[in-house]
């Protein structure tokens, strides 16, 4: 435990790490201020405190009272009344089968892959039916500003947070793994069997610092965003509100369907949690690389090149053979692909995804594989010739 604290102290003593975190925060502030502002969404948030978020008769009565009460922009309240009047449940009679068929036709897949795609959407149909029963779509979210605010919050802002968190965590891990090389103390520290055991507290300290940095960035960024925006009771609204939607080239415009029932609050927490798990995956991979490549600069570039290759190969290689296609679908579970698809976590995914709950499966598989490879790397390091 003492070693753990010493290792943590070493990492936190680096001025460059704090400087980088400050730069990330500054960037996030700019993003929040420039992109995050939406007057109408703030009005909806403010109104939701009085009206609640369930679009029933009581909602319309309260909305009328709020409109007659004054204080809020009449034009925007009128717009809200117009948008919420006479709405129907988008999940009533909604069929997911057509999405599956469009994806199968567009991807040109047959056999097992086509069946897997159809099975995924058959499973999604059950989630849709459950949502229809609960009238999940008949919730307010941010009404006409829902799509823009949802994209900003869970695609743009969360995306930047995960990217920054992953970068700082990876660099902390590489700093920790290469610390003895940088300060030329490796030959002393690693001269004994006990000395080489220091890797364990090193990894623990680096992971703590990395995940901690991610949470600090997330907390500070959301604090500023929430300070500048009005959410009211919108936190209790379902993310599968009728006002939320997705667009892709193949399936077109469709409702935002999640496998589970998520409110805005629980979806946000789930996104931040999954983001932390992804940061952990990247950190474990980087630690393995850091043990083999002792030059920290080169290790970081190897990490980047490995991830970029994992993105390029599934895109560039023609999917003629079934084995290549299987490799492509498996590659979608890699951390870098999960990072690229963070905006559709907890949904059915897109044309590249044939499994339900791809982010959960991907994170579990990646964490298990990264942890196993880290153990092997550490085992190898115990007997490695460091001369």
């Amino acid at each position: 435990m003492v070693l753990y604290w010493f290792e943590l102290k070493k990492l936190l003593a680096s001025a460059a790490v704090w400087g980088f975190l400050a730069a990330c925060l500054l960037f996030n502030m700019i993003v929040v201020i420039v992109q995050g502002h939406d007057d109408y969404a703030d009005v909806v948030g403010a109104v939701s405190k009085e009206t609640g978020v369930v679009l029933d008769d009581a909602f319309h009565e309260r909305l009328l009272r709020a409109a007659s009460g004054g204080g809020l922009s009449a034009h925007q309240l009128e717009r809200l009344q117009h948008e919420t009047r006479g709405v129907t449940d988008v999940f009533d009679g909604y069929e997911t089968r057509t999405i599956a068929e469009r994806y199968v036709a567009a991807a040109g897949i047959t056999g097992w892959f086509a069946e897997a795609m159809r099975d995924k959407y058959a499973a999604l149909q059950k989630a849709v039916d459950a949502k229809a029963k609960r009238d999940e779509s008949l919730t307010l979210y941010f009404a006409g500003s829902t799509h823009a605010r949802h994209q900003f919050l869970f695609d743009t802002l969360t995306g930047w947070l995960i990217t920054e968190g992953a970068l700082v965590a990876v660099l902390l891990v590489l700093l920790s793994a290469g610390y003895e090389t940088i300060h030329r103390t490796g030959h002393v520290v690693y001269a004994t069997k006990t000395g080489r055991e220091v890797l364990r507290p090193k990894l623990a300290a680096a992971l703590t610092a990395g995940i901690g940095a991610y949470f600090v960035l997330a907390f500070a960024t959301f604090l500023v965003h929430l300070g500048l925006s009005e959410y009211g009771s919108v936190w209790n609204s379902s993310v599968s509100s009728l006002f939320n939607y997705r667009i892709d080239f193949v399936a077109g415009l469709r409702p935002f369907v999640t496998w589970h029932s998520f409110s805005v609050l629980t979806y946000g927490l789930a996104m931040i949690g999954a983001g932390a798990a992804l940061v952990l995956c990247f950190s474990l991979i980087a630690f393995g690389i850091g043990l083999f490549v002792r030059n920290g600069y080169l290790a970081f570039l190897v990490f980047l090149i490995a991830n970029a290759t994992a993105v390029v190969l599934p895109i560039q290689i023609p999917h003629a053979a079934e084995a290549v296609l299987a490799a492509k679908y498996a590659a979608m579970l890699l951390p870098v692909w999960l990072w690229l698809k963070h905006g559709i976590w907890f949904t059915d995914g897109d044309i590249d995804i044939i499994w339900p709950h791809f982010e959960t499966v991907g994170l579990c598989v990646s964490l298990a594989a990264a942890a196993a490879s880290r153990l092997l790397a550490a085992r190898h390091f115990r007997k490695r010739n460091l001369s």
Partner: protein
Amino acid sequence: MRLVFHEMKKIWNPGAILVTALVCTLFYWLFMSYFIDFPQGHPRIEEVASSIELLERYGNTLEEHEYEAFVEETRQTLIAEMERHIDSLPVFADAGIFSYEDYERVRGKNVQTEAERAAVWTLLGSETGFVRFRMQALERIVNAHDGYLRYTLMHQLSQASRQRDIDRLNAVMETQEYRNIMDWNVYENTVDYTFCLAVMSVLAVLVLVSPLVVNDRIRNVHLLQYASKHGRNVLMTQLSAVLLSAFVLATVLLLVFGAIYGTNGTWVFRNSGLTSFLNMIVFYGDITYGQYILIYVAMIYVLCLGTAALAFVLARFSRNLIALILNLLPAFAALVALCLFVFMHPFSMTNVLYRATGIPGIEPAACVLLLVVGLTASFWLVRREKGIDMA
């Protein structure tokens, strides 16, 4: 000079070359390869083809009588070709289509039968040589030509707030500079590719030249060097090596990725003025596509040298290689933002820097400013090093 080459040998070590080449290759596959297979999709293919046909037939500008003759002749040819297909293919008779007019009527219907849909798509398909798409490309030329003075320029005039811009737009109208033949698809494709190439150049320079100073300091080589006759001038030698390496790298990147881009055939527009009725954007100077490329090349050199100088400064303030990366990442983000401001529609009235400042030539000036700031900081560091206490 001998010492500079020795320092360059440290920069250009096989590992660094391999990593830089891999980074560039992956960057190319991820972001740039899309722009080589150009043009892609319909009607973009037909639009570019018709612009090239105009260029080949009439030179760099399209006069009024040439435009009228081209449109009349091409329209007649395309209609005759479509009529031939309509007469010969049964799919049209099945849909009750017996002439080009019938076809257009059916195409404009909100609800079509299965037979009508099949007939409509036949003239848009490979079986008929995408003839309806060729007609669409011709219609685009007509719309662009007829609407340029009435809508495009008028809209820009109504939006312009600076007298300089108003004068320029009036000059474009009076001199009929808009008669240049410059295809919008080609220009946009080139802008996107050149922006990506600028970002790649910045990335490659940062990756290649940054570790030199830090590596020496980690190994305390600088203390050994400072004891020699050349002494503390070695930092100046390293700065020279860094700048020279950036210059060489920029040359290599421009040659390789310029040659790759040259294969897509857009160079035929080299003598065409960028302000054109086929291009949506008005430029604040009378500049051709070829001149734009030449200025771009010069800007890339300046950008790479400025980046190298900045990397040298950041490296000097980094105690180890991880700290170096932590310093380089925000610098890279800032340089990408600079590239976005400079290389997206440069020399045009829609460029962000020009819109903000109203200064013609602000884009190359921004690159030069980066170089001046980088070099000033580097020389200050070199001078400071001479008096620093090493104890």
